[in-house]
């Protein structure tokens, strides 16, 4: 019997090793798997490379992971925000490496890793500083930049519902990077609001088929409401 459900967030992240590359879903805090990140902080893995659209908000979730000095490098599109002071301080102190990637290139590089694409030519960033040092080519009169996939050891994502086979549906704009990150990691871990019996998710609307997901952990709604994340 296939059963990808895991009893706790701590168990779900227990084998994330020092030096791992970890994708973290979310756009700002929408879709950010805060409970899994908290478990990763408790677990203690360090020297991590993190892939996320941003670089943390306030003192919670990804920002808390950065604050705990567990991250060596971050790959993201938009680190600077009004409440990214944790990242800002680390960056100015030279304590974190930043690889800045245009958001669409970030998404496509993640998608490419999950889809087995070796590299691709994209028009985004052609002729800009973010293409410096990269191979370029003119195709049908238009300039393109060669970009390589971004794969990960683990992906931590947040979905609305999942089942024991790992099928997932999301909620509104909390979907964002979840589906593509699930495809690009050797081990995709989804925190869901509820685990439902097989067959309850309409097969016509399953967004992430279970083959892309290795672990599913249910986060109790009451837990979410009583956690510092929900208050902040």
């Amino acid at each position, binding site marked *: 019997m296939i059963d990808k459900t895991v009893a706790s967030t701590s168990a779900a992240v227990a084998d994330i090793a020092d030096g791992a590359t970890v994708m973290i879903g979310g756009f700002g805090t929408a879709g950010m798997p805060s409970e899994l990140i908290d478990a990763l902080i408790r677990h203690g893995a360090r020297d991590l490379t993190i892939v996320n659209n941003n670089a943390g908000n306030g003192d919670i979730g990804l920002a808390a992971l950065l604050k705990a000095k567990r991250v060596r490098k971050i790959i993201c599109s*938009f680190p600077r925000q009004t409440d990214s002071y944790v990242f800002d301080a680390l960056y100015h102190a030279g304590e974190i490496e930043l690889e800045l990637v245009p958001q669409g290139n970030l998404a496509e590089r993640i998608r490419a890793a999950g889809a087995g694409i070796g590299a691709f030519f994209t028009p985004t960033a052609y002729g800009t500083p973010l293409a410096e040092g990269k191979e370029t080519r003119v195709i049908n009169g238009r300039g393109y930049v060669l970009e390589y996939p971004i794969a990960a050891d683990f992906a931590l994502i947040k979905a609305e519902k999942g089942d024991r086979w790992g099928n997932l549906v999301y909620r509104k704009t909390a979907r964002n990077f979840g589906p*593509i990150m699930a495809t690009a990691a050797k081990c995709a871990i989804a925190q869901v609001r509820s685990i439902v019996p097989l067959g309850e998710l309409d097969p016509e609307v399953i967004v992430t088929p279970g083959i892309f997901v290795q672990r599913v952990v249910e986060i109790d709604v009451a837990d979410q409401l009583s956690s510092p994340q929900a208050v902040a």
Partner: protein
Amino acid sequence: MKRYTRDQMAARVARDIPEGAYVNLGIGLPTMVANHLPKEREILLQSENGLLGMGPAPAAGAEDADLINAGKQPVTLLTGGAYFHHADSFAMMRGGHLDFCVLGAFQVSATGDLANWHTGAADAIPAVGGAMDLAIGAKRVFVMMDHQTKSAESKIVAQCSYPLTGVGCVNRIFTDLAVIDVTPQGLTVVEIVDGLGFDELAALTGVPLRRAAEARADKQKVV
């Protein structure tokens, strides 16, 4: 000198967005365009974080942390709207499916190069987000910006001194003084704020401008 207000600029941009258009409004000033889109036109707003058919801000108390826009503010979804993941969202831009985007800018060059993501200052933390994808992806790129910097330098320049967002990507510039098209023959003035003459506008602009009438005459010669 009379200048268009923010709202007048936004209304002017909105006038150029036709029925049926798919549009992405950048963070900041461009978001004001949404308030001026004519109600009788069905125009669909796309947000990079995965929604098409974005509606206005929700009523106080009805905010949903899972339903936000690119600026991470709470929004709503129109009836008939859709959610999708990030790779699909940027396929809409890069794949040429989006009819218009409206972006803010630090500088635009005479050939339509855009600089809007980074001042290049040594201590500035660079952040690009979706700006580069929008700049090269949308079928038509509108820029909305002040004509001059606070220190009265033209933001329309021969060559951008700030790091580029995209090369030759801007089609039309809406400033607080004028509406200007980027054409292969150079910058053509479409409209000027009431009370300002062409020569006065030209004196405030860092590169040569053409009158719309000249551009039309040239076009007729070519035909």
